[in-house]
C-alpha cells in the first residue's frame, strides 16, 4: 500500500514560525491566502502571523463569509464578533497594502436543505490560483462542510496543474489555529435534522449492490446528537470509532467514550476491540491509520461483494483534515468511500465561556500542513 503522504510536512507551534520564516525567505512567493471570516476568535491569527513575516512577491486575500440563506445575505447583518473580526482584518490588511475580496457561501436552500458543501466546491477554479506559487487555506474559522470541499477542489486543481509538463508549481498549504479547550467551549446553536454527504464524497446507493456499510466516526465532545443522526442514516453493520490518544488530557478518549456509551453499547455494530486511537495533534497519523483501516475493511469484505465505507469527522479540525486525506486518497483509488456529516446551524460562545476567553486564547497553537507542491514532486 503506497501512501501519498507517507512522508509529510507538518509544523506546529514554534516550528510553525520557523518554517514560514525560512520558507518565505527562500525566494519570491506569490501567495493567495484564503480564510473563513466568522465569529471564531482565531479567525485572524494565522494571517497576521504569516503576513507579519517579510517576504517577496504578491499577496492577495480571499475572505469567505457565511450566510444561512439568501435573505440573510441580502440583509448582511452580522453579529458583533464577526464584525469585529472583519474590521480587525481590514485594518490589518490596509496597513499592509494588501487587497482582500470576499466571497459568499449560502449554507441552506430555501427549503432548508444543506447546500454549503456544493456551494463551497464551486467557489474556486484554476483561474483563481494559477498566478500564485502558494495557496494557503486557513481553516481556523471554517466549518468542516466548507473546508473539506474547498481543500478537495484546490488539491485537484493543484494536482492537475502540477502534473502538467513545464507548469509552474502551485503549493497548497493548510493552516489552522488549534485550541481544544476553545473548541469545547463553542456550542452548536442547533444542528440540521439530516445527515448529508459532503459534496464530492458521496457514496451512492447504487441500486441493488447490496454492499454492507462500515462507518468510521472520529469522536469528539458534545456531538452525540450528530453521531446518532449520522448512524441512523447509514445503518452500518460495523462501527469503528476513532478516539484521540495520545492527547493533552490523557483521559480525553475515556471521557468521550463515556459520553457516547448509550449510543455505542446498545447496538451490535460496535465492538470495543475495533476502537482506533490516534494522536490528537498529528493529522497525518490519522490519515495513515485510517488509510490502513479502510484498506483492511475493503479486503475483508471482498468475499461479500465489497463494502461501502463512510467516514464522519465529529472531532477537531486537525483530525478532520487527516480523515479527509485518507478518504480523498481512497476515493481516487476507486474505493466506495465517502464523508457524511450533520451541519450545524450556527455556533455560539456562551456568556460564561466568553468571560474566560482571554485566558483560553493563550492556549492557541498554530499548525501548518503542506499538502501539495514541491515536497511531493519527484
Amino acid at each position, binding site marked *: 500500500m503506497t501512501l501519498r503522504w507517507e512522508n509529510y510536512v507538518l509544523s506546529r507551534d514554534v516550528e510553525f514560525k520557523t518554517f514560514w520564516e525560512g520558507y518565505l525567505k527562500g525566494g519570491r512567493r506569490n501567495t493567495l491566502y484564503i480564510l473563513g471570516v466568522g465569529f471564531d476568535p482565531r479567525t485572524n491569527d494565522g494571517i497576521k502571523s504569516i503576513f507579519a513575516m517579510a517576504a517577496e512577491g504578491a499577496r492577495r486575500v480571499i475572505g469567505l463569509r457565511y450566510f444561512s440563506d439568501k435573505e440573510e445575505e441580502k440583509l448582511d447583518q452580522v453579529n458583533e464578533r464577526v464584525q469585529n473580526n472583519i474590521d480587525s482584518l481590514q485594518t490589518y490588511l490596509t496597513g499592509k497594502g494588501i487587497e482582500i475580496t470576499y466571497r459568499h457561501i449560502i449554507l441552506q436552500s430555501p427549503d432548508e436543505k444543506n447546500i454549503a458543501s456544493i456551494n463551497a*466546491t464551486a467557489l474556486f477554479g484554476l483561474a483563481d490560483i494559477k498566478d500564485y506559487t502558494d495557496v494557503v487555506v486557513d481553516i481556523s474559522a471554517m466549518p468542516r462542510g466548507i473546508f473539506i470541499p474547498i481543500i478537495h477542489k484546490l488539491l485537484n486543481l493543484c494536482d492537475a496543474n502540477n502534473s502538467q509538463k513545464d507548469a509552474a508549481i502551485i503549493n497548497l498549504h493548510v493552516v489552522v489555529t488549534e485550541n481544544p479547550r476553545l473548541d469545547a467551549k463553542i456550542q452548536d*446553536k*442547533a444542528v440540521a435534522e439530516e445527515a448529508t454527504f459532503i459534496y464530492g464524497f458521496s457514496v*451512492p*446507493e447504487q441500486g441493488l449492490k447490496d454492499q454492507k456499510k462500515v462507518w468510521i466516526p472520529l469522536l469528539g465532545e458534545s456531538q452525540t446528537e450528530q453521531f446518532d443522526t449520522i448512524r*441512523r442514516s447509514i445503518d452500518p453493520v460495523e462501527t469503528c470509532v476513532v478516539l484521540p490518544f495520545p492527547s493533552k488530557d490523557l483521559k480525553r478518549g475515556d471521557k468521550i467514550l463515556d459520553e457516547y456509551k448509550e449510543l455505542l*453499547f446498545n447496538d451490535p455494530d460496535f465492538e470495543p476491540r475495533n476502537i482506533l486511537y490516534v494522536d490528537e495533534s498529528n493529522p497525518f497519523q490519522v490519515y495513515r491509520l485510517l488509510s490502513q483501516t479502510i484498506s483492511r475493511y475493503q479486503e475483508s469484505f471482498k468475499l461479500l461483494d465489497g463494502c461501502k465505507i463512510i467516514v464522519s469527522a465529529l472531532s477537531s479540525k486537525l483530525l478532520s483534515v487527516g480523515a479527509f486525506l485518507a478518504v480523498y486518497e481512497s476515493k481516487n483509488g476507486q474505493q466506495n468511500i465517502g464523508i457524511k456529516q450533520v451541519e450545524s446551524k450556527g455556533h455560539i460562545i456562551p456568556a460564561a465561556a466568553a468571560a474566560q476567553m482571554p485566558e483560553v486564547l493563550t492556549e492557541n497553537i498554530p499548525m501548518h500542513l503542506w499538502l501539495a507542491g514541491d515536497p511531493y514532486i519527484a
Partner: protein
Amino acid sequence: MRVDSNPFFSRASELIDLDDKFVQLFSPEILHVFKNDNVSSIWGPVKIFRSSPGGGKTTLFKIFTAKLLSQIKERSSHDLHNRGIYELLKELNAYKADGSPSVAGSLIPFNNEYVSLEYLRINDVYKLRLFFSLLNTRIILSILQSISIVRDLKFPDELNRINIKVDHGLLIPKSIRTLSTGTEFYNWACTLEERICKEIDSIGEINTEFLEGSDNLFSLDIFAPKNVTIDGALAIDRVLVMLDDVHNLTANQRAHLIKSIIDKRPLVNTWISERLKALSIDEIFSEGSKENRDVSAIQLENFWSQRYAAFEKFAKHVANRRIASVLDDQVHFESFLSTTLDPESLRKVREALPKVQAHIAESHGNIGRYKNWISSKENAELNDDLEKLIAWRSLEILIHRDKIKGNTGQATLGLEPLDDEELDDQEGSDVRNAALLFLNNEYGIPYYYGLPTICRLASFNIEQFLMVAGELFEEVIALSVKRIVKKNLKLVVPPARQEEILRKTITKKKYNDVLTIPEIREFLDSIGEFCKSQTYLPNAWNSPGINGIAISMKERTLLKNTAIHDQKHVYYKLAKCLATCFSNNLLEFRLNYKCKGKLLMVIYINRIYCIKYNLPLYNGKFKERNLTTLLDWYNNGFKPQRLQV
C-alpha cells in the same frame, strides 16, 4: 436477570439491517392502519402516508417488501409471531390462496443524494431529467429484484426468464423501446445509474449529454403486471412501489414527483411516505389532504389518536417485543413499572392529608351547606391514605364549584345543606384526576407514572414512546447491576422515580432543539402557561384539565388562504410559527371539531411537553381563543390575568 444493553435504545426498527431482527421486533398492530379500508382500496389509488419522525412509516413499508413477505411465509409454519403477521397480511391480500406472496414490493428510499441534483450548475431542465432518470433506474432495478425474490429466480442471473412487453404508447426513452428481457432492462439501468452517480458527485464540469428525455416516472408504467411474464405466464399479481422518505427531496423535486405520480395514475400500486415537515405551509394547515379518487392520504398519528386503546396495545406489544429481544424469560415491560407508592411518597401523602383537611375545615367548615359533605368524608371507610387524600382534595374542588354556582361564597351560607348523593354524583373520575394533578402540583405526590401514562406521553408516535420507555429501562438496568450485591432488590421503578426520569427526559436536547428559536419557545410556553392557568383554577372547572386551545375554522381559513401568503399580513408570523410547531410535532391539530354549534380547529400540545407545564395527558379539553389573542401571545407572551371564578 442481567441486562447489558437497552433494547429501547437500539436503532429504530426500520433501520435494523438484519431482517430476522426486524421481524422479531415488528408489531403487527400497525397493520390496523389498513383495517379501516376495504381490502380492495389498499391496492387502489396512490397512498400517501405521513407522520412525524418515528411514526412508523418505514416499518410499515418494509414489511411489504418481497424479501420479508417471502420470509414471513416461510417461518409462519413454525413461529407463532411470524404466523400472526402472516395471517394479518393475508387478510390484506398480500398472499395468494396458496400462501405465496401476491405482491412484488419494492422499497425506494430517498436520501439526501437527490438534493444535490437541484443545486448542480446545470440547466433546470437537465436537473429534473437527471432526477427522474436516476429514480427510474432505481425503480426498475428494485422491481426486477422483487419479482425475482417472489418468483424464486436467481438475481440477476435468471432475469432473462422475465419478459416485459413495453407499451409503445407510453412516453419512454428511445433506448428502452427495444428492450424486452429482464436482463436487458437490468443492464440498461445499471449502466445509466452508474453514469449518473459519477456525474452528480463530480467536482468538475457535469456532462448531461448522455441523458435521454425522460422527465416522468415511466418505470411505474412499464411494470404493469399484465405486461410482465416469466416463461410465458404472468409473473405477478401486483407490483408495489413504495417511495420512502420523500421529505428528503427538495420542495421542487417533491412537487414534480408527486404531480408526476398523481397525473399519470400509475399502472403499479404506488405508496409514498413523508414527514409532515415536507408539506408546504398551506398543506400543513390542510392536514396535507389532497384526497380524491386518485390519491388517499393517511396521517399515522391522527389515525392512532382516534383509536387510543389500539395505540396502547400496539405500544405495549412493541415494548414487550423489545424486552424479549434481550431477556430469555418472558417479562412484560409493565412489570418493571410499579404503581405502588414508595415510602417517601407515602410520607408526603400522610403529611398532605391533615393539611388538606385543615384547609377545608378552615375555609368551609363553618358553612352549613357543606356539613354533610365534610362529615361524609370524615366517616368514609378508606384504608388507603392516598385514596383518602384524593377524596378530600376532590371535596375541596367540588365545594369551590358549588360556591361559584351560588355566585359568591357568602350566598351559599343560607342555603340548604347538600346531601351525600349529590357529592357522589359530582365526584366523577375527572374530578379525582384533577385532584391528583393538584396534589402533584402542591405536594409532589407522583402523577406521571405507569405504562398507560407513558403510552399517552408518546403522543401517538412510536419512536417517542421508545425514547421514553428507554429512559425508564435504563433505571431497570441500573437496578439489575445493584442486585448483584443486593439480592433482594426488586427490579421495579417506583412511581416517584418514574416521574423524576420522565421530567428529566423532557429537558434532553432532542426535545429542545426547535425550542432554541425564541419565538417558537415563547409561543409554546404561552400555550402551555395558558393551559396551566386554566387547569389549576380552584374549582377545576375543566377537570381533569386542558392541554389544548382552538381557533374557529373560519380563522384557520384566514391563516391558510391569506395570512401565510402575504408577508405583510398581520397574522403572517403567527401562521408561520404555528406551521413550524405542527411540522416539528410540538403541536398537533384536529380539523372541523364541532363544539357549541361552531366548527373549530383544535390545537393540542404534544403530550411529552405536557409534563413541562404540569398538564394532564388525557385527550384533553381545550379553550377557544381568537387569533388576536394568539398574536398577542406570539408577540408578548401569555400574561396570566385574574380570572373571575
